[in-house]
């Protein structure tokens, strides 16, 4: 037999195998995860992957008796057109049963028409703009929205003798949303926002803004900053310029998230935030979550992104269970709308109309627990729905 015919035979054999094997492969449930796996936001992708895979591992490798196959797709940064292409490929070519992931709002919005058409249940692990889930009936969200965590914080500030607050937010979409949510809720309770500072997104030197906060005569500063360098720079400036020492309180949301927290060092001690998830949340379910993450990777970080993915997989798990592994988007979403369970963050449920997660929001303070910086929950604001309607 000459080499050429051997090759022909080999190709023929593998083709035949592909045909025979194809029906078997269809038994597995395919989940496409879309997120940034390269570039400056790659850590989100890694956190999604960790949370999702740890969940399946913790369930013994199968969800509702079905083998689950993850297909990861990389969007880099905010890139709606590429995200749309990737989602289309996943739906049409890879024939995924579910989609998950999404860090950036524009990326999530871009897939709305696709999933509406293909009836693919899509679980958002992060993207936090209120209106997204309205864009398709197949969106379910297991993260949070800015107003969901900001409104209780503003009310708490007004109730706790903080009558004058200055807002300092990064000058981009979510920052402006956060500023609006805080202002509305705070002034409704009789508080005064004495100054609203918007900091350019390219800012490296935060000292001038911190001096302005100091000069404004406010008792506290409400801030919203994107994670990473801006976040670290602002907190450093807040401490170095003596704001903490002069008694101007720091009020934030995601700023002290576990991924950035240990990079602040002791500068973070005493920072006050309102948020839905702390790795220091004291519950059996949270301990199981962290143990599962660390079993997969001892250096894993438990934060809002990994818990978003973990709970997202819980929702997908229940949807697989409800449809017995068959592809039935409408039935799956109908089942998801009724879910309520004990998440690592506390008791949660999916809101029947908005398909967004309803969860406790906690007031937290950064403290050292066993020598490590942690967000200790000092007060539970109780279950919070997405408060967009009340905030605007």
């Amino acid at each position, binding site marked *: 037999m000459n080499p050429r015919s051997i090759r022909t035979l080999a190709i023929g054999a593998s083709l035949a195998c592909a045909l025979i094997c194809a029906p078997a492969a269809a038994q597995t449930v395919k989940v496409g995860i879309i997120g940034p796996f390269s*570039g*400056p*936001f*790659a*850590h989100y992708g890694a956190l999604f992957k960790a949370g999702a895979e740890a969940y399946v591992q913790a369930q013994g490798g199968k969800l509702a008796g079905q083998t689950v196959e993850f297909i990861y797709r990389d969007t880099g940064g905010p890139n709606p057109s590429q995200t749309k292409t990737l989602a289309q490929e996943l739906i049409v070519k890879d024939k995924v049963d579910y989609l998950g992931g999404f860090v950036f709002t524009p990326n999530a919005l871009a897939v709305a028409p696709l999933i509406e058409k293909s009836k693919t249940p899509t679980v958002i692990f992060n993207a936090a703009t209120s209106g997204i889930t309205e864009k398709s009936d197949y969106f379910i969200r297991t993260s949070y929205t800015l107003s969901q965590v900001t409104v209780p914080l503003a009310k708490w500030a007004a109730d706790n003798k903080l009558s004058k607050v200055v807002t300092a937010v990064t*000058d981009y979409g979510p920052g402006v949303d956060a500023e609006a949510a805080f202002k509305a809720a705070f002034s409704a309770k009789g508080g005064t926002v004495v100054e609203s*500072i*918007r*900091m*350019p*997104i*390219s*800012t*490296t*030197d935060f*000292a*001038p*803004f911190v*001096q*302005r906060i*100091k*000069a404004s005569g406010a008792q506290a500063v409400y801030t919203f900053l994107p994670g*990473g*360098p801006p976040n*670290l*720079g602002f907190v*450093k400036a807040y401490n*170095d*310029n*003596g704001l903490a020492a002069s008694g101007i309180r720091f009020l934030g949301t995601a700023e002290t998230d576990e*991924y*950035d927290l240990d*990079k602040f*060092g002791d500068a973070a001690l005493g920072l006050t935030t309102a948020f839905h998830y702390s790795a220091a949340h004291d519950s059996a379910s949270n301990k199981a979550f962290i143990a599962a993450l660390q079993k997969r990777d001892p250096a894993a970080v438990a934060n809002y992104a990994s818990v978003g993915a973990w709970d997202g997989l819980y929702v997908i798990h229940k949807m697989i269970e409800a449809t017995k592994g068959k592809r039935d988007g409408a039935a799956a979403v109908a089942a998801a709308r009724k879910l309520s369970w004990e998440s690592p963050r506390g008791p949660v449920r999916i809101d029947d109309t908005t398909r967004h997660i309803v969860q406790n929001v906690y007031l937290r303070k950064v403290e050292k627990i066993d020598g490590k910086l942690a967000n200790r929950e000092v007060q539970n604001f109780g279950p919070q729905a997405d408060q967009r309607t009340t905030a605007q």
Partner: protein
Amino acid sequence: MTLVLNILVDGVAYGMVLFVMAVGLSITLGLMKFINLSHGAFAMAGGYAVSVLAGTHGWNFWVALVVAVIATGAFGALLETLVLRHLYRRPELQQVLFTIGLTFFLVATANAIFGPQVRNIPLPSILSGSLDLGFRTLPTQRAFVLLAGLAAAGLLTWTVARTRFGIWIRASVDHADAASGLGIPIRLVQCLSFGAGAALAGLGGVLGAELMPLEPYYPLKYLVLMLVVVAVGGMGSIPGSLCAALVLGIVDTASKYLVSEWGSLLFFVAMGLLLAWRPRGILNR
């Protein structure tokens, strides 16, 4: 009045950080006439070196700083000897393409080794507090950068203008063949000056890290700021770079105090006006 003082203090402090970051580039770009867009990558290398030595291995900060600056210089000199010297006589476009490619390579390398997250540089206790200026406080680290920047500016100006080595640099850039004919070891001079530029970049990376935190995308993120300082300051003029950095720092700070909603607009308007007024450098008529 306090506002004006605040703007001056913060502006000078910020300007000095800009100067420390850019002064190495002023040497390679200005004195050696080599378009080195990988400058930010050298700054990042210096920063990561201190972060690893002082942070992970617990070295003394000052020892780590000296070792990191020398190591970055040696790394620069090595690259110069192996690769970059072949680019001196190539057209500018090839220099740009090569050095930006090198930057991408180093960004990916840093990402692979250290991961995408921000790295801390642990400061010694003497630098971590704040100084009381009477009407306000200033972070001690910023005051140290101020002194270090002035020292670097003085030392470099003196080296270039007064020492034999400075004369050699200027001679080998202006007319390499004639300089070589006069017995000046131009290869050594080029290699050493490039190494010095890289070492200064490393120093800037460490000292500037409080404002420009270390992460793999660092070399691309802050490159524009450094290029602006060198362009406005005038190619190769160290006092010019210092002056430009201070003016731009004060303008940017003033805009943050007064019209922050305009973003970085004033910074770039100032750059445009200064370049239109003195295209060859802020101190060159």
